[in-house]
């Protein structure tokens, strides 16, 4: 008898929990008809730092749009699910967003790794898939017509650096280079291309190894790089801790390359500075299409609103924020032009060769969906304050300042 009571209670607990959940579900639908945009972001897991920066970028854009009358007179509502940085969860999330939540539009997740499977889901349902963080060749390899990356195509990231090295007089030109890279679809194309181009320009490769992305201890790898005494180090990193581990091990080995470029990490603004220490950042370079100090009216306005909301300095704004924001802007322009939320029309419009504007500069998609207008820059942290994040390359660009070369010794 007592056992049965317990069973009933147990079932009751479960039923109660489900009831609460269903009630919460019912309560969330409302009478007005906002435009619902479905997004899956890595709010926990390996990419959570980037995922949360993306969330800020998308929300900053949505708030701006909503405070300026919305799109087609309708308010914008973001339906954000967390994918915990898992490619399988990202599939499930976009399927749910499209088939169950009936979102009007979808925006991309963070990183090529998650963009590839999710663009396929969107394609299956005929949704336009505009994203800001899936620029690696793998994202375009399938030839889907619905994928559009507003950011700089990844493979060309290091091209300004290569051109600059080629332009140096022979006496100043680096002789040797090391290329440690993590096994990631984003970094490997970047590093491969940089290596090929620099080798062709006569810079000898003295170290080229791939290391696992999930490592916790990079010091032996960094020590091997330090032992080569390479003139420049081009690091294929995806995140801040990798960069910081290499920097620390280099300093411990009294090794300071003439130039240190990391594929990603130093572009994360204050998140980078707080991890490695402000003084250590002096001279560290990173490729990218945008920084918080970018001289563009839209960008300046966005940075101002970002700082008003989250604090910090322009140099401290994560480039992810601008990437996400640009996605919103591009879709906004397409929908406004079409006067329709039809995804087919958005795809057609974005493929028409029209030039759109974004906080990252002009956007024009080529047949693959890459932003052919995007210009690559190299940025460099200068000084020991951790607030001076300067565009240094290409030298021909009027906003570029003088590059620090050779890089000062760590922490001076």
């Amino acid at each position: 008898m007592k056992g049965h009571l317990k069973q009933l209670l147990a079932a009751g607990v479960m039923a109660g929990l489900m009831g609460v959940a269903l009630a919460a579900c019912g309560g969330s639908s409302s009478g007005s008809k906002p435009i619902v945009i479905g997004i899956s972001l890595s709010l926990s897991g390996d990419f959570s730092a980037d995922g949360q920066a993306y969330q800020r970028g998308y929300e900053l854009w949505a708030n701006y749009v909503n405070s300026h009358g919305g799109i087609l007179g309708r308010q914008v509502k973001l339906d954000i699910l967390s994918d915990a940085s898992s490619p399988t969860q990202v599939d499930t999330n976009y399927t749910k967003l499209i088939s169950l939540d009936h979102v009007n539009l979808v925006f991309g997740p963070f990183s090529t790794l998650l963009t590839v499977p999710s663009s396929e889901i969107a394609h299956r349902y005929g949704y336009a898939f505009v994203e800001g963080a899936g620029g690696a060749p793998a994202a375009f390899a399938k030839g889907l017509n619905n994928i559009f990356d507003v950011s700089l195509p990844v493979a060309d990231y290091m091209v300004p650096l290569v051109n600059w090295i080629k332009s140096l007089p022979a006496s100043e030109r680096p002789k040797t280079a090391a290329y440690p890279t993590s096994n990631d679809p984003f970094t490997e194309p970047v590093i491969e291309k940089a290596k090929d181009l620099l080798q062709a320009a006569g810079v000898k490769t003295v170290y080229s190894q791939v290391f696992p992305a999930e490592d916790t201890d990079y010091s032996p790898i960094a020590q091997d790089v330090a032992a080569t005494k390479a003139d420049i180090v081009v690091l294929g990193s995806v995140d801040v801790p990798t960069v910081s581990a290499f920097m620390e091990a280099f300093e411990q080995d009294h090794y300071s390359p003439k130039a240190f470029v990391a594929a990603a990490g130093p572009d994360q603004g204050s998140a980078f500075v707080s991890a490695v220490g402000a003084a250590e950042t002096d001279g560290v370079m990173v490729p990218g299409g945008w920084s918080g100090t970018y001289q563009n009216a839209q960008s300046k306005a966005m940075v101002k609103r970002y700082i008003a909301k989250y604090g910090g300095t322009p140099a401290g704004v994560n480039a992810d924020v601008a990437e996400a924001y640009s996605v919103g802007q591009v879709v906004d322009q397409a929908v406004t032009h079409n006067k329709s939320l039809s995804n087919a029309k958005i795809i057609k419009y974005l493929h028409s060769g029209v030039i759109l504007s974004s906080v990252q500069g002009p956007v024009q998609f080529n047949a693959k969906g890459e932003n052919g207008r995007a210009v690559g820059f190299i940025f460099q942290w200068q000084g020991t304050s951790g607030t001076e994040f300067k565009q240094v390359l290409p030298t021909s660009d009027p906003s570029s300042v003088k590059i620090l070369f050779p890089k000062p010794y760590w922490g001076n």
Partner: protein
Amino acid sequence: MTSLYAGLIDGVLTGAVYALMAAGLTLIFGVMDIINIAQGVFVVLAAYLSYVLAVHFGIDLFVGILFTMPALFLVGIAVDWAFIRRLPARDRTTMSILVTYAVAIIVEGVLTVIFSVNYVQLRAWYVTRSFHLLGFYLPYIYVFGFGMAVVLMAAIYLMLYRTRFGRSIRASLQNRQAARLIGINVDRVSTLTFGIGVAVTAAGGMVFGATTAFNPNSGYDLISRLLSIVILGGLGSMAGAMVAAISMLMVEDVVASVWSPLWSEVVFFAALVLVLTLRPQGLFGRSFSRAQ
């Protein structure tokens, strides 16, 4: 050749710190049959405590351990009181994994709310500096960390083998029931063991935070190393934890240097499987003292 020696030296220095973190895990497991999945996140919690002391109060990292160890001891006692001692006797080990995982998630969540997911790293003059010895640069932090780990491991060893309390722990480790029969308060010993096992992560966490940039998620990668060390070293064995941790780090560092970083973990795991095939109880584990 140099990179081989560098790998070996690194392995010894960093291995000792991992041994210290794993020592807590193996002690808890040996005495209580509890697999504390939260050990990894406690390391991260300790690193954050050191961070707060260093950044907001200007307390040196090594001095800060004097505060973080007691703090983590209390955290351990609290977790034991709230969750561990409430575990029913049936399927205790299985359950401990599920429940300490929930604890790990709770701690991780609290850390995320307070510190955000952005990475930080502990800073001090000895973190980035090194001295030159026999052709190698030895980072001060590794040497200091190694020294501290050896001292603390020795302290745990002395406690286990030279004190009354240590005898009670060892008795409980060998046979709970018999220990109870000879008048040992096994529950109290368990609680204190859990506290001590968590407290030693404070020291390990400080060195971890000084050598690696970390965020609240970092405990996830750490736990896999700690568990591997415990099963390689053998259950409840301090010496086993030390030997296992150092050989693990050496194997990984050397393979990364002379072959490829992509293979370093695989080679270690292959070695682990080999050892388990030959000695299922691990390097220093007693065989079947409590087998069914």
